[in-house]
């Protein structure tokens, strides 16, 4: 029996609404709700070695679940427990600095993702090779095309080897060849990493790699099942 590595127990998360003093005061008098509930009582247990998918409409709370797991937003109610080192792949190239070279940005982004100096030195050759940037790697990143930036971002992000990997819609960048290559890379990463939670709108991919899929709707985890079950239930719910 595999043990569980991610536990979400009754996780509820509120986001405050930003307001001026006057409307804040009005709300206080009228006792109106001053927050928006992003997640409502989410229960989820993910086992070691499992590839778990999350599907749902835009704004349903899929990404928010990943952010709770990775520690960006601590839950307001309930608890979230994990075992092992977590890494969230989202928004490739966060924190890139346009005026530094590709190499410098690779190191910067790597350190943002949680690498220390030694790991970064070890992984740099692999990153540079995968990014296929050639001599461009020594040019400032402002000279890069969007696709090149995305390639560098994916190269750095996919060099990490966490215990638990959270992937938030990072596929589908660059030209078709690179897209194939990046998909293969992510699949490798999924195979190598013990546990993966993936958010994607690509149902084909979900069927291919996921053991279980959960459907998120309006902040609630409405069902968990095999990929096929989940996808058909997704269409029923969102009709």
């Amino acid at each position, binding site marked *: 029996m595999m043990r569980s*590595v991610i536990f979400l127990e009754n996780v509820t998360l509120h986001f405050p609404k930003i307001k001026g003093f006057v409307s804040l005061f009005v709300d206080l008098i009228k006792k109106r709700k001053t927050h928006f509930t992003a997640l409502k009582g989410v229960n989820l247990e993910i086992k070691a*070695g499992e590839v778990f998918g999350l599907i749902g409409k835009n704004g349903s709370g899929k990404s928010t679940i990943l952010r709770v*797991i*990775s520690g960006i937003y601590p839950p307001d109610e309930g608890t*979230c427990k994990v075992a092992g080192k977590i890494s969230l792949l989202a928004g490739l190239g966060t924190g890139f600095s346009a005026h*530094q070279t590709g190499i410098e940005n690779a190191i910067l982004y790597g350190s943002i993702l949680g690498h220390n100096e030694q790991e970064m030195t070890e992984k740099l050759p692999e990153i540079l090779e995968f990014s296929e940037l050639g001599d461009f790697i020594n040019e400032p990143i402002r000279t890069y095309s969007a696709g090149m930036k995305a390639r560098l971002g994916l190269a750095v992000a996919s060099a990490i080897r966490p215990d638990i990997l959270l992937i938030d819609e990072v596929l589908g960048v660059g030209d078709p060849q690179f897209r194939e290559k990046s998909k293969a890379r992510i699949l490798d990463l999924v195979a190598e990493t*013990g*546990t993966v939670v993936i958010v994607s709108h690509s149902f084909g991919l979900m069927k291919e790699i996921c053991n279980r899929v959960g459907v998120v709707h309006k902040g609630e985890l409405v069902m968990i099942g095999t990929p096929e079950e989940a996808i058909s239930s997704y269409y029923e719910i969102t009709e």
Partner: protein
Amino acid sequence: MVEPISNGDVVEVGLKPPLIKAPIYTIKEMITHRFLIRNLVVREVRGKYRNAVLGYTWTFIEPALLALVYYFLFYMLAGNPDELYAMWVLIGIIIWGCFGKSLQATVSSLTRNKNTIHLVYFPRIVFPMTSVMANVVITMMSCFVIVPIMIIFDLPLTIHVLLIPASVFMAGFLATGVGILLAPLNCIYRDIEHLVRFIVRAGFFVSPVMWTYEMALDRGFFGEVVVYNPMLTPITLARHGLEGHATTLPTSIILWSLGFGCIMWLLGSIAFERYERRAVKYL
């Protein structure tokens, strides 16, 4: 499928040690993330002087030009100032600038980095600390402007010149405590940012930038009040260091300023750790 995880302790996400330990705990976090902090500081320093022909020389051209302006202003208003007056103003501008810029950068550090905060988790104390360190590094570079000044005015180079870098650190330290205290609040109400900008402008005149501690001493009541300004110590120490003698500032004033910095650090780090998670939801 791969073997399950090696280190198997189940831990609750985002648990923090008790708040009372925050002042020490945040320092430990910074040491753990030193590689990240160094890279972020480099990014900020590089970003500041990008695409400038004169590049890093702007770090000392800017205070030098400002000092020149204030020198003429003072010359016209008061007439016949001390020949070292321009230099006093210059060093005052540099040290006050370090404090002011660090404070403004720390207060807005969470709001400026909101994209990173939404996508990656690492201890958020890293953001304000990076801002302070980048400003301390830039100020250190601008301190090289004193080399030609020391030659022109024939000032003795003594061990006391070390008071200048010490004052830069002190200015940064004073800004840190106040800055991290306000940074989470600024996520909720950006008004804080505007308020701090005003305070930095006003503080320029209340602090010994255009005047010196010695001038204030001759003004009776005013001289008694100004010693309570924590920024009096770093600016005056830097001036004494530049003149090449041990400081004549009473120890009690220096201790008051250091104590103020430490208390602000205690309060600031506790408040930051307490409120940062709630505050980032407003970003």
